């Protein structure tokens, strides 16, 4: 993915696009809402909300079960999302797209199923220093059960991975590599293609946490040659409670089920159960059907704008915001990688991030404060947390100006 400025067709009306998100059209604490917490969760356009409502109002039945028409209709709607995801990320086979409840669930699935099957005492799992906790803790849990240990690829002061250290850490003991594509705390775009190629030279599989990448750029899992790729619906204009695990078919086929229950079986007797085929082997129980249908509409919506146009518009806004924030006295941007997406983390001299977040909220500005579920990142910079403005294509220059005014006001407040 490349976030240099691209030519955005002048026919795209970003104001009109913004108006399709009714949630943005409200006041918070008497001020027009400025929503800059898209990294935590993006908003849904009306068309996605309408689709989910229509499903609940007229189409609901359980999927993959009934012979009756309503069930078949629900199944068709739910399954059409799988095809849309396959196209979005360019998966080779439809059954390589596994429905989960989100990125966290996707990573847990791989850690639990693949890890428990293949890890043993003395094995090493490589992660980066900038992982979200969701890509640390599942490996620690499986490590405790199998004796495998975490090894950490460090980053430098700009929040870029020290690739020489990665090559040093790769060894015969390395059994798995799991890396974040775009850092949720710093915005760094990591060189995942290089990491994957180096790991594959040693036949080591790689999982990519793409929660902050898929919503902001074109991701091609075949081009990356990722073995597993995880992301969430609610960060890409879809609903919460739904996510995707992409996995290469030959790997998924060689992995045991993660959870047992309905829908994932072929034949059940009290003596022995045989598993259903992919993808259903990993999809036990009744799924969040409406959310799955909603993700399908969200993908259609993003495609109607074009992922490259979205990436281009967000790059414009990031450049605009970085320029404006850099001019504020006493403001320090944390994470100054050469390649960044969507996120600007920063600190104000002498003002605790939670204090600043409280005042910004009073000004109607929603940013995230704290450690962003990436405590090792905060430890690296020896800071308690940051303020994080995360930008989406439906934000605009006025939002950034309001943020700058809010920051200036916050500074005055604590002087």
């Amino acid at each position, binding site marked *: 993915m490349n976030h240099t400025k691209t030519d955005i067709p002048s026919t795209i009306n970003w104001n009109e696009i913004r108006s399709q998100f009714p949630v943005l059209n409200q006041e918070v604490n008497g001020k027009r809402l400025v929503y800059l917490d898209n990294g935590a969760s993006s908003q849904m356009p009306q068309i996605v909300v309408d689709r989910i409502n229509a499903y609940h109002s007229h189409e609901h039945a359980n999927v993959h079960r009934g012979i009756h028409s309503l069930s078949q209709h629900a199944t068709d709607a739910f399954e059409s999302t799988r095809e849309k995801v396959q196209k979005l990320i360019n998966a080779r086979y439809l059954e390589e797209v596994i429905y989960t409840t989100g990125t966290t669930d996707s990573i847990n699935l791989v850690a639990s199923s693949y890890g428990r099957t293949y890890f043993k005492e003395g094995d090493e799992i490589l992660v980066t220093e900038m992982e979200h906790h969701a890509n640390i803790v599942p490996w620690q849990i499986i490590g405790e059960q199998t004796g495998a240990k975490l090894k950490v690829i460090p980053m430098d002061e700009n929040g870029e991975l020290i690739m020489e250290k990665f090559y040093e850490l790769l060894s015969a003991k390395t059994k798995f590599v799991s890396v974040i594509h775009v850092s949720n705390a710093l915005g760094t775009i990591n060189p995942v293609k290089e990491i994957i190629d180096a790991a594959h030279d040693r036949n080591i599989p790689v999982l990519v946490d793409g929660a902050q990448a898929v919503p902001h750029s074109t991701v091609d899992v075949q081009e990356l040659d990722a073995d597993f790729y995880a992301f969430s619906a609610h960060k890409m204009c879809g609903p919460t409670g739904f996510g995707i695990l992409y996995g290469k078919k030959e790997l998924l086929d060689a992995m045991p089920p993660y959870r047992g229950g309905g829908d994932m079986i072929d034949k059940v007797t009290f003596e022995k159960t045989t598993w259903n085929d992919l993808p259903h082997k990993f999809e036990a129980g009744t799924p969040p059907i409406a959310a799955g249908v909603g993700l399908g509409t969200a993908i259609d919506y993003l495609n109607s704008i074009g992922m490259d146009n979205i990436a281009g518009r967000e790059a414009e806004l990031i450049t605009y915001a970085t320029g404006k924030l850099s001019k504020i006295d006493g403001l320090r941007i944390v994470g100054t990688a050469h390649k960044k997406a969507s996120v600007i983390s920063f600190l104000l001299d002498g003002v*605790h991030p*939670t*204090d600043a977040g*409280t005042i910004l909220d*009073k000004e109607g500005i929603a940013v995230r*404060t*704290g450690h962003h579920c990436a405590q090792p990142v905060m430890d690296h910079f020896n800071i*308690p947390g940051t303020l994080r403005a995360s930008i989406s294509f439906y934000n605009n220059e006025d939002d950034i100006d309001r943020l700058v005014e809010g920051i200036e006001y916050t500074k005055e*407040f604590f002087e």
Partner: protein
Amino acid sequence: MEIEELQDRIVKEFNLFEDWTEKYKHIIKLGSKLEPLPEEDHIEENLVKGCQSQVWLVASLNGDKVTFKADSDAAITKGLVSLMVRFYSGQTPDTIINTNPEFISKIGMAQHLSPTRANGLASMVKQMKIYAMAFRSKLTT
């Protein structure tokens, strides 16, 4: 002072302020006046869990009354912490256990007391009550 009287007094004190700006500035001022917590008390085991900003809390029993000391690295949190210290310090364990800080919502700071809020003033109140319970059992044995 009786604790209910103290609640009323704090509410009256905040009624003087017309908007949130003045209220928050007053809270920050209260925090800056909080009796400093000795350096040796700024340790991991005195940290209140569940706070996005760091809050340290220590308690001691003097006769049958509890004394709290606290600190925070964030200014607004420190102000709220100072209100809690003022509210519960010098009260008996029973009073602390049986009295909730209702003044917090009356002065328009209810959002800070929400158990789901990451700045976790609720965690601090819970920790103060846990101290009070420990002291009560010490007094009755």
